[in-house]
């Protein structure tokens, strides 16, 4: 399986990433795209920015491990993960997961698996920076743990 992981401050071009991944996807009949964006109104006080930090080196290795685990469960041709860090404004892209596989069921399932484990295993931390100047580190969600746990 081809696997390409990037942690970056800048945004990404969906069309360019899709075209690049297809170069490595062979005869795959399915390509699932998941893009996550920053929400502005998760809280009473609107968000000015979402700040993300990570653990360089360890983050990439953990995502590689998650992708390898996915490849053991489904026949995947190619995986692309981009996760942004730094200060992101509401509406901006935050994460991209592309999964190419022979058929859609494996591609859908693997994309969801990757997102569930990106949220619960990869060393990223979000901080909400509000318009009133206050800041708060985001709490881990039990619902995210439950989503990952269902994969067994």
């Amino acid at each position, binding site marked *: 399986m081809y696997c390409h992981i990037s942690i970056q401050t800048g945004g990404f071009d969906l069309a360019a990433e899709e075209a690049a991944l297809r170069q490595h996807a062979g005869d795959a009949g399915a390509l699932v795209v998941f893009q996550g964006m920053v929400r502005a109104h998760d809280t009473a006080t609107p968000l000015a920015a979402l700040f993300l930090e990570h*653990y360089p080196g360890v983050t990439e290795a953990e995502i590689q491990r998650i992708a390898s685990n996915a490849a053991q469960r489904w026949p995947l041709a190619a995986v692309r993960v981009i996760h942004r860090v730094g200060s992101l404004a509401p509406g901006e892209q935050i994460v991209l997961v592309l999964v190419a596989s022979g058929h859609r069921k494996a591609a859908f399932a693997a994309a969801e698996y990757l997102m569930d484990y990106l949220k619960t295993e990869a060393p990223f*931390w979000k901080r909400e920076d509000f318009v009133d100047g206050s800041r708060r580190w*985001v709490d881990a969600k039990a619902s995210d743990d439950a989503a990952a746990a269902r994969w067994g």
Partner: protein
Amino acid sequence: MNIRVLYFGRLKDTAGCSEEQLPWAGGNTATLLAQLRARGDSWAQALAEGQVFRLVVNQQVVRGEADIPPGAEVGILPPVTGG
């Protein structure tokens, strides 16, 4: 001999820094957590069971306990919130 301890997320606020050098006579990840929790209430709360997701020793994620050799880099990770 020292170890280099790295803090992430809200643990940076507890520590008041993103990393520190700590004198290290030897021990494992449990020894380190016990030593840091003994610094006071704010540390004990921030590093309580359930508040620490994992430790990373020399870039290797630890599940359970692991030895911390002198000179090691140790990352202390609060529950993660990426994606």
